[in-house]
């Protein structure tokens, strides 16, 4: 047992508050959103906290405008975010594509509920993994992160803001309703404990030609705040290094590759994960979000009983860490993906591993939390032991 702590940095909060605490720690100063279960507590908490800390909160008329408003705010130099759930996330896809094209740092939180459509508003799901990847039209790359505990969600949210700045890209944080509404311990890190990435602003002085879309040698693109000394254009059209529309095939080709490569070529570096007892595991459980908690329980119990079970918990879903998954599964007899959908990550795992026929799915799509038994039953079936 740990020593009793009465520090005011120890909280007993729901996941949505852990997300808000992470965002505030990261320096969010603009929130626009529209109420939707199960994410509304994020907006409520932001409406209370931001005005008190010099930030701006606005409740917009829908999720479309919420996404647009955070892009506008980010251009003026603020760290900006919105939060929603599946139906609202669908409405945000248009402006999400804009943020990708115009390279606007921002964070979108999607607290996943059951879908499609209105679905299961008050119950958990992980059905939006593919929506996060391919919800907006056109070729693009995207970063999507997730977490399975409040401490991890806090850190993931901070990381989302950091990556948004580093990559000049929208970053999506996905987690399920169960994490959003359950309460558990969150210990707030002290300022400075976690690294923060601030907006990279150009050193080019006023009056000198500034190129908002010209990458430095390290791949980062210094920005200039709207209202500052550099006047440039921002558009959702393919554009040149000044931000002006272009249909020149060379310009279009280069921009498409830049948008893709700046994320996809850093897949391994972006891959965040936790692992448990993978070294000699013949049964590898791959999971993320709250189902990973049950996977951990199964693996610990399995180990106690002499079974070689290990867990790979993914905290980066996109770009999908295929290399990491391939390596983790190299010696596995059986790979079981544990998730609350019809196999969205299972499909990625099958594409990543050398022997896709060894990949199975342990899932629930009824709004209920995945129990240990749901996983152990699949293990028994795959091993030929029956239920």
């Amino acid at each position, binding site marked *: 047992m740990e020593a009793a702590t009465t520090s005011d940095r120890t909280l007993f909060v729901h996941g949505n508050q852990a997300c808000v605490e992470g965002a505030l720690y990261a320096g969010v100063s603009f929130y626009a959103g529209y109420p939707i279960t199960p994410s509304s507590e994020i907006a409520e908490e932001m409406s209370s906290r931001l005005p008190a800390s010099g930030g701006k909160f606005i409740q917009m008329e829908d999720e479309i405008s919420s996404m647009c408003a955070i892009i506008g705010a980010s251009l003026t130099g603020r760290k900006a975010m919105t939060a929603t759930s599946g139906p609202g996330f669908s409405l945000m896809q248009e402006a999400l594509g804009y943020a990708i094209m115009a390279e606007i740092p921002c964070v979108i939180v999607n607290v996943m509920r059951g879908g499609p459509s209105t679905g299961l508003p*008050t119950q958990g799901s992980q059905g939006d993994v593919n929506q996060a990847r391919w919800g907006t039209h056109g070729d693009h790359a995207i970063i999507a992160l997730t977490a399975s505990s409040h401490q991890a969600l806090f850190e993931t949210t901070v990381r989302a803001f950091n990556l948004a700045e580093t990559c000049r890209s929208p970053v999506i944080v996905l987690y399920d309703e169960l994490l959003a509404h*359950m309460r*558990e311990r969150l210990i707030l890190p002290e300022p400075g404990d976690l690294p923060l990435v601030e907006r990279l602003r150009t050193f080019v002085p006023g009056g000198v030609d500034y190129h908002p879309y010209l990458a430095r040698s390290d791949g980062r693109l210094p920005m200039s705040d709207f209202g500052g000394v550099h006047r440039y254009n921002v558009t959702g059209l393919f554009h040149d290094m000044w931000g002006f529309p272009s249909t020149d095939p060379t310009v279009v080709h280069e921009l498409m590759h830049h948008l893709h490569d700046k994320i996809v070529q850093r897949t391994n570096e972006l891959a965040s994960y936790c692992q448990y007892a993978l070294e000699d595991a013949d049964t590898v459980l791959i999971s993320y979000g709250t189902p990973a908690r049950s996977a951990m*329980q199964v693996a610990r119990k399995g180990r106690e009983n002499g079974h070689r079970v290990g867990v790979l918990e993914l905290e980066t879903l996109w770009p999908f860490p295929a290399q990491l998954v391939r390596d983790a599964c190299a010696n596995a007899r059986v790979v079981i993906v544990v998730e609350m959908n019809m196999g969205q990550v299972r499909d990625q795992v099958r594409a990543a591993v050398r022997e896709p026929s060894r990949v199975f799915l342990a899932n629930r799509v009824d709004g209920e939390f995945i129990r240990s038994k749901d996983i152990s039953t699949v293990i028994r079936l795959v091993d030929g032991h029956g239920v």
Partner: protein
Amino acid sequence: MLKIILSGVGGQGIITAGVIIGEAVVIHEGRYAVQTQSYGAEVRGGVARTDLTIDHSEIYYPRVDQAHVLVALHQDSYVRLNRRIRPGGILVVDESLVTLDARVDARQFSLPIVRTAEDELKRPQAANMCMVGALVTMTGVAEPESVRSAIAARFGPGHPNLAAFDRGLQLAPGRVLHSSTV
């Protein structure tokens, strides 16, 4: 590990009761707790339920399928949830709102929780705090002092909920659950 389900009807403060216990355990005692709740579309009314798991180490699975302790402050939640108790577990109900069913395999305790809050404390909305008090006495789920700290932090020092909690401590017959589970 101790697994508790608190239940009743929406508006009785069931969830708040669960949160207070969780705060006492996590913030004031440095142990682990996970609390979940079921939501319906109703804002008021309907069965309210919160699950609490308390342990000395990290808790993975957050829901309670088989409770050591079940509290039911309403007949509907008693009927619906009594199968969620472990055989021989502890079931605490409100004397005036729940009629006990002898077939339930549990040690059942019927306490005057609501009546105490209404008639004696003149504060019907504090029945949930009386219930937390009774639960602390019966199960030792948390130290009374850490629950008082949690109540004071949430509602303010000197808040009537503190008196309701203290009165609740006296409502129970004494410790009925022994420490091996906590």
